[in-house]
């Protein structure tokens, strides 16, 4: 059935993929692919109003809406038009058998007036509601807990104010609410009231979106190889998933800032089950036993790509360059020895992540991670994402962070088994990185690209005005 899906005007790129992922989560395999989208005539793709066809019944639509973060509501659309007269005509034409069951004398209802890009005063809202006398409501009005909620949604012929490219005409929608997002969990989980956070703790809204992309739910196991303070796993655990995490930094995973301010206390704070395991390990040399594979249902992470926090891996910089021979740790110092680490380049980090995911994810399992993209004018349009023979890319959602770079949330599904051949290929590439580490460390150094001086040869490298004024992906 087709529904009107109204989104919050946020994280525009993330909205449709979230609905598709949740359709897959609640509707079973293939349901995500079965979701169809349509835009109203004269509506821009960044508009909050989308028509969506969901597989399955109304219950599925309600489940999707209730679990999502970005769906303001999913409605059974009774009619829409450019004016209230057109709307009346459309509602009257809508079949009675779809309308009457919700208008019975035993039921209670409420009409809510909402708008996008304009404000409707209380008096005007009352006038609008009174205008619906042509709908034969027989039930009682109940403002607190109605059985059925009806929405009047009005959007203007956008001027320049609301930040969207203009659409041609104003539209009024009338629909019955099927489900709506519960954004109450955002104030509950907001980072500013979390006990233990680090400089790169994931914003809770984004963490929930990532958990949704990873189909986190009870009985599933979610792994974050760059766990840090656990902000992504907290979101996955909220949705009932079992969690596991690893990090190369012993301070975050073991000590935190004290006995009541560490990764475990973050789970305790929200009364969530604590992670099954947190360990200190290097993603470059993962300590999984030989032959172990396909144990995680999702790997969700924000790899350190060197802009805010640099990645580290085992082995000193000089050691890897071959300047000094391997240092042999004297026996008496082994106990508390702190091994040196070397910078972990983005290319190698992503290779290791894909290889690990290919091995450790179950078939149909999801790899969800952020990938940085430089917004250089010549490469911006042909952003190339990492690929792997085991994975199919199902969503890429951009979030612009600055004039120079943005990050893209990639969602990949494991579609092919991890074979010996793929294992061998991965090992060879691993070796290649080890042997040519110098090249990989210098190439693709995102940090210098993002923080290089603004002017080069007297010319500003990035011209503010060269980018289009409207950048919906900022919201």
């Amino acid at each position, binding site marked *: 059935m087709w529904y009107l899906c109204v989104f919050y005007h946020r994280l525009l790129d993330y909205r449709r993929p979230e609905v598709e992922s949740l359709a897959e989560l609640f509707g079973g395999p293939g349901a995500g692919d079965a979701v169809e989208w349509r835009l109203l005539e004269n509506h821009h793709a960044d508009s909050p109003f989308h028509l969506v066809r969901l597989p399955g019944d109304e219950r599925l639509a309600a489940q999707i809406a209730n679990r999502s973060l970005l769906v303001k509501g999913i409605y059974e659309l009774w009619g829409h038009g450019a004016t209230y007269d057109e709307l009346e005509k459309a509602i009257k034409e809508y079949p009675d058998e779809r309308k009457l069951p919700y208008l019975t004398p035993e039921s209670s209802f409420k009409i809510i007036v909402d708008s996008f890009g304009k404000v409707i005063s209380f008096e005007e809202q009352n006038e609008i509601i009174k205008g619906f006398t042509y709908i034969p409501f027989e039930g009682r009005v109940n403002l607190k807990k109605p059985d059925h909620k009806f929405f009047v949604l009005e959007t203007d012929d956008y001027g320049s104010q609301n930040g969207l490219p203009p659409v041609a005409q104003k539209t009024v929608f009338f629909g019955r609410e099927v489900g709506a997002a519960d954004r109450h969990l955002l104030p509950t989980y907001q980072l500013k009231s979390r006990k233990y956070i680090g400089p790169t703790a994931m914003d809770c809204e984004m963490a929930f979106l990532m958990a949704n992309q990873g189909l986190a739910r*009870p*009985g*599933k*196991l979610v792994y974050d190889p760059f766990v840090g303070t656990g902000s992504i796993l907290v979101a996955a655990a909220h949705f009932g998933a*079992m969690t*596991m995490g690893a990090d*190369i930094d*012993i301070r975050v*995973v*073991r*000590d935190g800032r004290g006995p009541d301010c560490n990764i475990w206390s973050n789970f305790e704070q929200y009364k969530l*089950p604590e992670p*099954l*395991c*947190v*360990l*200190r*390990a*290097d993603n470059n*040399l*993962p*300590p*999984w*036993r*030989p032959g*172990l594979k*396909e*144990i995680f*249902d999702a790997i969700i992470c924000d790899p350190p790509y060197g802009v805010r926090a640099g990645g580290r891996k*085992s*082995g*000193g910089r000089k*050691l890897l360059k071959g300047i000094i021979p*391997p*240092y*042999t*740790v004297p026996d008496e110092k*082994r*106990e508390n*020895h702190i*091994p*040196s680490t070397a910078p972990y380049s983005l290319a190698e980090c992503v290779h290791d992540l894909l290889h690990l995911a290919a091995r450790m994810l*179950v078939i149909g399992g999801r790899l969800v991670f952020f990938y940085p993209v430089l917004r250089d004018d010549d490469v911006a349009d042909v952003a190339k994402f990492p690929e792997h023979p085991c994975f199919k890319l199902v969503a890429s959602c951009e979030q612009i962070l600055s004039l120079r770079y943005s990050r893209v949330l990639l969602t990949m599904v494991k579609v092919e088994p991890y074979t010996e051949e793929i294992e061998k290929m991965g090992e060879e590439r691993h070796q290649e990185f*080890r042997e040519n580490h110098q090249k990989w460390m210098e190439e693709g150094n995102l940090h210098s690209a993002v923080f290089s001086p603004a002017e080069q040869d007297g010319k500003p490298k990035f011209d503010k005005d060269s980018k289009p004024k409207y950048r919906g992906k900022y919201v």
Partner: protein
Amino acid sequence: MRLLTHNFLASNVRGVSTGYPLALEVAKSSIKEVELNADFLRGILPKLDWRALVAAASAAGFPDLLAAEQPQEAELFADGAADAEGSAIRRLHHALLEIHVDEGALVCPDSGRSFPILKGVPNMLLHEDEVRH
């Protein structure tokens, strides 16, 4: 560290071919109750190395908790087994998820390298001279 984690880990010190199963040394352990999730156990069961799990449970002070041979799926997931005190699935759940090693070490069977466990977190990071090149 739960015994589930122990079951997945190996030593990847240079020169070691399998590095598994790691011997478990327990200095301090505790029990924390967790809700049983049969779906999770069903998914994880085929991935387990049963012998290593039995050995780990034994090292943690529960030598008779698990049967020497892996029980059949039918027995584990029989109706009502999850609620029956002392059933095979409850014991498996207890062994995998409720026994915590707070302090101790994981010892590589090939090289003797000891990976310390402190505050429940195993430290699997290698020293410079142990990294494979």
